[in-house]
């Protein structure tokens, strides 16, 4: 009986470790960013000057950088991820084509982000430079647009796999009813499957947004690392994750450190809320069906 109890305690304890880690991350970040919160207050979020030497810390350029790259990436990836989920969820549920595409998606998801960044820097950046020369703008090559392209490739697998799952959950009798009324496949997908799976697809997009917001290495390598507010899509910029990656190890003063930690705190809270909401939506959808 004692062994039994110990065993159950060990199980419970390991579950608690996860809880403690998550709470500790939040508490530590909050505590360590207090000096910065006291110093800058809310102005932190809307001032655009980042000058650690003069103790001026405005995170607005990074907020803009993060939001622009993430949403642009989401926008670019949308037709691809939706197509893949319809391809796998409606047209080819199994068989050779389905397996081939699934393998491609798995491999895309498996490539480390540092390799995406490296490849982007040496292959994509020169292409973008040519493109910018043709457009007659300064050919930085690196910048928000390049980051968004790399990010969109990286998030396609996430939203595609989640949307595929929810499109698979659409009850067959609903679709069969539409077919029996003479609907074409396009009409079934457009009027039955997609509306039915709407909230799940939204959750998939939300979760991939969470990925994009927090993605660090690939973005750090191709965004150009400039700390001022970007004026065009092609400008070099910085995101919240990339500013931490670039400056955390070099931050010299306490306040400087604390500010970077505060940026980390914002990232943590936003991504935590996004994954919480995304999972809730999917769970609700599963419950409504099952």
């Amino acid at each position, binding site marked *: 009986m004692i062994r*039994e109890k110990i065993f159950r305690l060990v199980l419970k304890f*390991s579950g608690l470790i996860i809880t403690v880690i998550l709470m500790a991350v939040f508490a530590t970040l909050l505590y360590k960013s207090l000096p910065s919160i006291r110093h800058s207050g809310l102005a932190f979020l809307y001032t655009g000057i980042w000058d650690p030497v003069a103790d001026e810390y405005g995170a607005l350029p990074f907020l803009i950088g993060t939001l622009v790259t993430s949403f642009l990436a989401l926008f670019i990836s949308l037709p*691809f991820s939706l197509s893949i989920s319809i391809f796998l969820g409606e047209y080819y549920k199994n068989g050779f084509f389905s397996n081939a595409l699934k393998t491609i998606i798995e491999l895309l998801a498996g490539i480390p982000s540092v390799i995406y960044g490296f490849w982007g820097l040496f292959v994509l950046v020169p292409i973008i430079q040519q493109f910018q020369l043709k457009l007659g703008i300064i050919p930085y090559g690196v910048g928000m647009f390049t980051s968004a392209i790399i990010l969109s490739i990286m998030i396609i697998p996430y939203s595609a796999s989640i949307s595929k799952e929810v499109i698979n959950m659409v009850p067959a009798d609903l679709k069969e009813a539409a077919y029996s009324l003479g609907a074409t*496949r396009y009409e079934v997908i457009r009027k039955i499957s997609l509306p039915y799976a709407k909230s799940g697809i939204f959750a998939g997009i939300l979760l991939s947004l969470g990925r994009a*917001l927090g993605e660090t290495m690939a973005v750090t390598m191709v965004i150009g690392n400039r700390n001022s507010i970007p004026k065009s899509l092609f400008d070099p910029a910085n995101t919240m994750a990339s500013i931490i990656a670039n400056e955390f190890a070099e931050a010299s003063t306490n306040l400087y450190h604390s500010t970077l930690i505060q940026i980390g705190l914002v990232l943590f809270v936003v*991504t935590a809320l*996004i994954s919480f909401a995304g999972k809730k939506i999917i769970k609700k959808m599963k419950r409504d069906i099952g």
Partner: protein
Amino acid sequence: MEDKGIRFRIIKDRMFFLFIVFFSLLCAAPLFLIFYYLVKNGLSSISLDFLLNLPKPVGEEGGGLANAIAGTLLLIVLASVISIPVGVTAGIYLSENKKSRTASYVRMFAEILQGVPSIVIGIFVYLWVVVPLGGFSAVSGAIALAVMMLPVIVRSTEETLNLLPYSLKEASMALGVPYYRTIIKVILPTGFSGILTGVLLSIARISGETAPLLFTAFGNPFWSLDITRPISCLPLEIYQYAMSPFPEWHKMAWGASFVLIVIVLLLNIFSKLGAKKWKVQY
């Protein structure tokens, strides 16, 4: 349905199908481009010298990444040692307490932890391990990686065990086997292949992680397997070499990327093979 000609509707259907196929297949393009460049530029930098030597300073020919390869393996082993026991037991806990309220919170926290950006995990480990130990170290890098692995292992273990039939446990209990022995001797071995797959996939995921290592493992140009000292690893080397202005170093980065992608691919293949090989029929 709206009143439109059937021919128009069929054409629309066909166009839609072509659109879907086109966009789906276009996703293969970046993958092939990445592999093409990795093989083209990476394979030529790989040699015995590359795999067995230490990096040389700029300007000198040759040199290799033996320290980074060893460092990557050491970090993976350390992270696995830390996170596999905790992750698997937590997974058992979740699957054994499906209805408990505490368990549902733990499940939710694990899901949130999985979504936390890796750079934030890096800050957390920096504050809790690097600062108290007084410097960058391999062990702090391993802890950061372990935190990243944990939710993946928990989730895959739970999902695997949830698929096992309840009769299996009942049969064992009916024979008078105590609960904890049932779990250890019946449930775990039956779910072994699934748990192994999850563990290997989580290793594949962290083996290329860079962001949390920037200010934990930090990197080291010398040979070191001391876990209290900074250590080099492939992702960090790729980052440093790629951002440097020297063409020789870029070549090293291609080589390192090639080695890293081979490691990641092998882990993926092993996880698939392992899932088949140790699958228990019941």
